[in-house]
Each structure stands twice: as C-alpha cells, then as structure tokens.
C-alpha cells in the first residue's frame, strides 16, 4: 500500500475546491430564510387592520324601543279611554277602542314598530277597571338579533293607568 504525502500547498488547494464548509453555509441560509419567512408572515397577516368594536351602547336599541312603546301605548290609551261611553263597564269598550287605535300605527300591513303586533287584541285579563282608572298591563318581548355575537331578549312588562 502506497501512502501519498499531502503537502500544505495541496491541502490549501483541496480546501479551496471544497469551498466554505456546508454546515456554516446552511446555517447562514437558514437564518436568512427564518428571518425572511417571519417578515413575510408579519406582512401577510398583519398588513391591515379589520375589527368591529362593540360597547355597551348596543343595548340602547332595546331601550329606544322601550321608550317608543311607552310613548305609543300612552297615546293609544289617551285616545281609547276618552271615547268610552259606558263608564260603569269600560273594559270591553276600551279593548275595542284600543284595537282601533292600534291599527292606525300600521302602514301597508306593517306596524311602525314591529313589536306593537304583540299588543293586538289585548286579553280582558290584562285590562282592569279600578277606582275610576283603566289599568292596562303589557308584556312585550323585545329582541335584538342583528348584533354580532350578541342576542338580546328582553321581556318588557309595564302597567299603564289612565283615568276615565
């Protein structure tokens, strides 16, 4: 077996031919790829902002409806009770007058506030005549579904009184 002596000049030549060691080159390129990839992800995923912000005001819509129902029912009660002729047994007449007034809030078959439909034909249990006053109990369900992730379901109960 013949052993060939490799001199310094030949070693340098071999190193030159082999170039930089592969592990170091890989490390540099992988560092570059990692940094580049991360920047690309930053750019693609957070280039623009898109968000909806909700605060407690989303309940306002329900309170606004509540206010409107109060106003409309009071208006209907004023008109329905002033037209009562039988002061001794006013409940049936009140219910009839109330239905007439309620229809006035319809336009093309739809109420100006859709929840008013729940007041159609009030039961005689909800209307009482006590001490010269008509007492009208309402129970309306107010819903709000249009708000993202939130659904509001509110049962509004109120007692309205009107002297006749």
């Amino acid at each position, binding site marked *: 077996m013949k052993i060939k002596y490799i001199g*310094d000049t030949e070693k340098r030549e071999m*190193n030159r031919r082999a170039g*930089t*060691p592969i592990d*170091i080159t890989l*490390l*540099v390129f992988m*560092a*570059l790829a990692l*940094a580049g990839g*991360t*920047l690309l992800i*930053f*750019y693609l995923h*957070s*280039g*623009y*902002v*898109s*968000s*909806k*912000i*909700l*605060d407690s*005001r*989303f309940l*306002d*819509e329900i*309170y*606004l409806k509540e*206010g*409107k129902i109060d*106003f409309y029912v009071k*208006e209907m009660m004023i008109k329905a009770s002033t037209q009562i002729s039988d002061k001794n047994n006013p409940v049936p007449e009140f219910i009839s007058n109330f239905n007439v*007034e309620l*229809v*006035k*809030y*319809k*336009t*093309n078959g739809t109420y*100006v506030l859709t929840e008013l439909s729940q007041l159609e034909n009030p039961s005689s249990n909800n209307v009482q005549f006590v001490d010269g006053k008509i007492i009208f109990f309402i129970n309306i369900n107010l819903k709000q579904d249009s*708000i993202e992730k939130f659904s509001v379901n509110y049962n509004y109960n109120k007692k309205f009184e009107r002297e006749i």
Partner: protein
Amino acid sequence: MINRRSQIGSTLTWFTATVIIFFIMVLFLTVSILDSGRKKVTSGWDDVKLEEFSGNLESQRVLFNLLESSFEIENVSMKMKDWLTFDLYNMEASKKSLIRENIKLKIFELINANGDKDCYTFQAISGIEKDPKEILKTTDSRGSGYVSDFIEKSSIEMSSYYNPAVDLRGVRYANAAHEKLLNRATSIFLIRNTNVNVFGVKEDYQKVLIKFYIGEC
C-alpha cells in the same frame, strides 16, 4: 502547527458567518420595527368600525318632553305633538312659521340651559310613512322634483346648521353637517286623525315622522 492553521481557517469561516447572521438579525429587527410602526388605521384596507346605533337615548328623552310641552298660537294653547298633527301641507305659511318659531324657542331653552354647547336638528314631515331619503331613492327621476316639493311643503325643519344667510361656499358644508346630525337622530311617528291623503284617496292613517337630535356637534 498544521492543526492550529486549520483552526484559524475554520474560525475565520465562523467569524464571517457570525457577521453575516448578525447583519441578518439587524436587518430583521429594522424591518420588524418599521413594519410595526406602519400599522396605523388608514383608509383602504384598514377597517376598524365602532358599531353604529340608530337613535340616541338622550335625544329620545328630550324629544318626548318637547312633544308634551305646550305653546300658544292665536290664543290657542296646545301640546307640541298636537300642533304637529295638523295638515302641514295645506297650512298657511304664517301659521306654519309660528309653529316653527315656537318649537325653535323650546329647543333653544334646552340648549341655553346646557351652556350653548349642543347642536340640534328637528324635522317633522307629515303624510309620509318612510324616511324621506328612502322615498327619494325609490322615486323615478321624473317624479323626484314633485316628491321633494311635497316633502318640503309638508315639513317643519330646523337645525344648528340651517342658516338662510349662508353663502354658496358654505352650503355644502352646512348640508353635510346637517346630514350628520340627522343620521344620529332619534325618530318617532305621530298619528294624524285622518286616513285621507293629499290626493283625496283613503289609505292607511296618515303619520307625522319626527326626527330629532340634540347633543355633540
């Protein structure tokens, strides 16, 4: 000696690699900082919405009080809600103007009580069932002039931004500001005691649409 020489060569390669990686990291940091600094809400792709809610609770409360308040015209005292259920379309201009001035006076009392800081808008339109904007949207262009005229004759309107003396340059700004207030306004319907419209045709009971806003300008 040979081994030491090879160590020097290897160290030199590592040194170069470290310098390169250091610069990559500096570049990464610089770009990251610049990129994060760029994230501000602008027009275009950026879309941060604060949910809008129709109506305004404070305005609604004030409106109910206003509608229940009374004023006198030609020795007749009535609540505002009753004055507004008159036939505004066929009303004499002088009477309509008096109603308008009385409403304005009531609103000004409220604004003065709050230190003159608030803006307001008030619109009462008789004989319509929908928002005037929706009506005009669905109206044929040939009829839009007539509809606008009908709405104008059937309404009482006032606003912080309404000023007949404003010159043409200010009209666009005033209209935009007025629209902004109208969009925030609360609305309610009053029922007129008639189901006969201006054409003499019986339809649903006539309504008066009231839109009102008082608050921040």
